[in-house]
C-alpha cells in the first residue's frame, strides 16, 4: 500500500486544505483499490465522486470543517438515503432507505464523501463477520484470519487501504474487537453522545455508533464530526460533540490506571498477555500508577449480555415481517406468511438470538432472567463507578486472543461469545471505551482496551493519545505500520 491510501485522515485533510491533492483524486485512489477483503457490501462510485466534487467546491471557497474531503466507509446497518442498506441480512435485500441516519447526514453536511457500505455480522450479531448473509470479511494482516466483528468490514476497509476512516456500531464490543484485530484505533463513545437515529436497532440500551482510524487523532476527528445532541434520538444526551481540540493535553505522569485481574484468565493468549504487560510497564515508566484491582462482576458480563441484548433484539427485530420492506414469502397463509418471511430472511445466529430473547422475556421467565440481568447490570455499573472514583481509566486487553482463523469458532457459537468479556462492561454501563494497538503477537495486532467514566470521552482520547505517543517512542506499536497488501 502506498501513496494516498496509506495516509492518515489528518494528513489527507492537511493536504486537501493546502490543495496539494483534490477531494476527487483522494476518493478515486480509495475507490480504485480492489476489495480483496470482503470489506464492502455496496459501493456507489458515482455518488461518492459527486460528493467529493461538492467537497472540493467547499475547499476551493476556503471553507469546510477539519475533515472536509476525506472519504469515509459506513457500516451497512446505518441508513443511507439512496444506497441499499441490508445489515448483511437477506431479510433487507434490496432495501433502499428513504432517509439518512443522523451520523450520515452529518458526514454529508461536512463534506465527507461516502465510499461505501461495509460488511458486518448479520444485524451486527457476531464477533467475526462470518454470519454475514452475503460474504465473509478477512483480515488484511492475514487473510486466513477474521478481522473480528461485528464491524469487521469497517475495520478491514481501513486496514486494507480501502478507506482512511470508517464508522461502525458497538453493542458488546463490535467496534473495539475489530479495531484490535486489525491494528487500528476504535472508539465507542459514552452511550447517548452519538445519535442512534437511522442505526438499525439491535440492543437499543447498548448500541452506540463510533469511528475507526489508524490513529487516536483520526478517530477523535471523526467522533467530533459525528457526535453531539440529536433531537431525533430520545436517548441522545443534551451535550456538545466530543471535542478533538485538546488531544495533545493528556499526560501519563500521575495517571491512575486500574487493571482488573478478571480481564485475564485461562483463555488469555500468552502473546496477548506479553504485549499488554509491556504496554502497562511502559505506562509505569512514564509515571503512571498502574495497579491491579478486582471487579468481580466482569465474570458475569457475557451471561448478563446474552440475556439483555437478545431480549432487546427480539423486540427490535419484530418489525421485519415482509410488509413495509424486504422480500415477502407467500403461501403460508395468514400469519404463516410472516413466519415464513422471517424463517427465510434471517440467518441462523439471528434466529438463535431472537429465540433466546423471546424466551427470556416470555411469561414466567421475565423476572428470573431479564429483570435479574438488569439487576446484575446495575451492580456491574456500580462496581465500575467505584473503581472510577479511585482511577482515571480501566485498562486490559481488548480480546484475550489474537485474530483467530476463519471458521475456527463458527461451529461453537458459545466459545466465540465467551471471548467478548473484556468489551461488554463498557456497553453495560454506557462507559466510553477504546481499543488502541499496543503491539503484536506473532505478527498479529494486539489491542489495549481503555475505559473511562461516562462523559469522560475527551479525557479518554487524550489519555489514549499520550499512550500512543509513548508506545510509538518505545517501538512497541507504530501507527504508521501497514499490512503488506496485494
Amino acid at each position, binding site marked *: 500500500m502506498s501513496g494516498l491510501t496509506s495516509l492518515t485522515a489528518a494528513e489527507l485533510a492537511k493536504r486537501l486544505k493546502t490543495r496539494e491533492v483534490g477531494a476527487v483524486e483522494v476518493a478515486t485512489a480509495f475507490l480504485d483499490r480492489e476489495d480483496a477483503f470482503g470489506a464492502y457490501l455496496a459501493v456507489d462510485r458515482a455518488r461518492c465522486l459527486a460528493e467529493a466534487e461538492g467537497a472540493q467546491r467547499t475547499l476551493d471557497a476556503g471553507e469546510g470543517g477539519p475533515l472536509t474531503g476525506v472519504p469515509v466507509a459506513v457500516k451497512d446497518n446505518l441508513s443511507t438515503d439512496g444506497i441499499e442498506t441490508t445489515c448483511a441480512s437477506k431479510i433487507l435485500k*434490496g*432495501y*433502499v432507505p*428513504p*432517509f439518512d441516519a443522523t451520523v450520515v447526514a452529518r458526514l454529508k453536511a461536512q463534506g465527507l464523501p461516502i465510499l461505501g457500505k461495509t460488511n458486518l455480522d448479520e444485524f451486527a450479531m457476531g464477533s467475526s463477520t462470518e454470519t454475514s448473509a452475503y460474504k465473509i470479511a478477512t483480515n488484511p494482516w492475514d487473510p486466513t484470519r477474521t478481522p473480528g466483528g461485528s464491524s469487521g468490514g469497517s475495520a478491514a476497509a481501513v486496514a486494507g487501504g480501502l478507506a482512511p476512516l470508517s464508522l461502525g456500531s458497538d453493542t458488546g464490543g463490535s467496534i473495539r474487537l475489530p479495531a484490535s484485530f486489525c491494528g487500528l484505533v476504535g472508539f465507542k463513545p*459514552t*452511550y447517548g453522545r452519538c445519535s442512534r437515529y437511522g442505526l438499525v436497532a439491535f440492543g437499543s*440500551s*447498548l448500541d452506540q455508533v463510533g469511528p475507526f482510524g489508524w490513529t487516536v487523532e483520526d478517530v477523535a476527528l471523526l467522533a467530533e464530526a459525528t457526535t453531539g445532541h440529536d433531537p431525533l434520538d*430520545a*436517548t*441522545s*444526551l443534551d451535550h456538545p460533540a466530543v471535542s478533538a481540540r485538546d488531544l495533545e493535553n493528556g499526560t501519563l505522569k500521575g495517571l491512575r490506571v486500574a487493571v482488573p485481574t478478571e480481564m485475564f484468565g485461562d483463555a488469555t493468549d500468552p502473546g496477548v498477555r506479553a504485549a499488554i504487560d509491556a504496554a502497562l510497564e511502559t505506562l509505569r515508566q512514564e509515571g503512571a500508577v498502574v495497579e491491579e484491582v478486582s471487579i468481580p*462482576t466482569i465474570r*458475569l458480563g457475557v*451471561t448478563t449480555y*446474552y*440475556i439483555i441484548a437478545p431480549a432487546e433484539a*427480539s423486540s427490535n427485530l419484530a418489525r421485519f*415481517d415482509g*410488509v*413495509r*420492506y*424486504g*422480500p*415477502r414469502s407467500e403461501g*403460508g397463509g*395468514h*400469519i*404463516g406468511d*410472516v*413466519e*415464513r418471511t*422471517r*424463517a427465510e430472511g*434471517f440467518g*441462523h445466529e439471528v*434466529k*438463535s438470538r431472537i*429465540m*433466546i430473547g*423471546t*424466551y427470556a422475556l*416470555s411469561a414466567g421467565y421475565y423476572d428470573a*432472567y431479564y429483570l*435479574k*440481568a*438488569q*439487576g*446484575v*447490570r*446495575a*451492580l456491574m*455499573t456500580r462496581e465500575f463507578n467505584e473503581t472510577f472514583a479511585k482511577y482515571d481509566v480501566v485498562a486490559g486487553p481488548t480480546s484475550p486472543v489474537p485474530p483467530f482463523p476463519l471458521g475456527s469458532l463458527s461451529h461453537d457459537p*458459545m466459545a466465540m461469545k465467551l471471548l467478548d468479556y473484556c468489551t461488554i462492561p463498557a*456497553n*453495560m*454501563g*454506557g462507559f466510553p471505551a477504546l481499543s488502541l494497538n499496543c503491539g503484536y503477537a506473532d505478527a498479529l495486532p494486539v489491542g489495549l482496551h481503555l475505559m473511562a467514566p*461516562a462523559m469522560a470521552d475527551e479525557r479518554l482520547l487524550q489519555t489514549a493519545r499520550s499512550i500512543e505517543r509513548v508506545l510509538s517512542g518505545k517501538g512497541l506499536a507504530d501507527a504508521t505500520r501497514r499490512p503488506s497488501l496485494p
Partner: protein
Amino acid sequence: MSITLDEVRHVARLARLQLEEGEIVTLQGELNALLGHFADLRDVDTFGIEPTSHAVAVQNVWAPDVARPGLPREAALRNAPLSRAGLFVVPMIIEE
C-alpha cells in the same frame, strides 16, 4: 434448567419463526448451552439494587410541538413488497 423441544416450538411461535425440525433441535442445544450459563446469575445478590434498563438515563425528553413534514407516502411505500392504492398490503388475518 433446560428447555424441551416443545418449549422451543412454543417460543418459535411467539417469535413468529417457522422452523424446520432440524433447526429446532439445533436451537434447543444452543439455548440449553446459554441457560447453563444463566444459572450463574441466580446466586448473585441483587437485593435492594434498582435494576437498570438504560446505561445513562435521560428523563422527560420533550420535543417542541411544531409540525414538520413527514416521509412522503410514495417514499414510505417505495420498499414495500406489496402495496395498493397508496397503502401497504398486509397478510390477511381475518377470514371473510
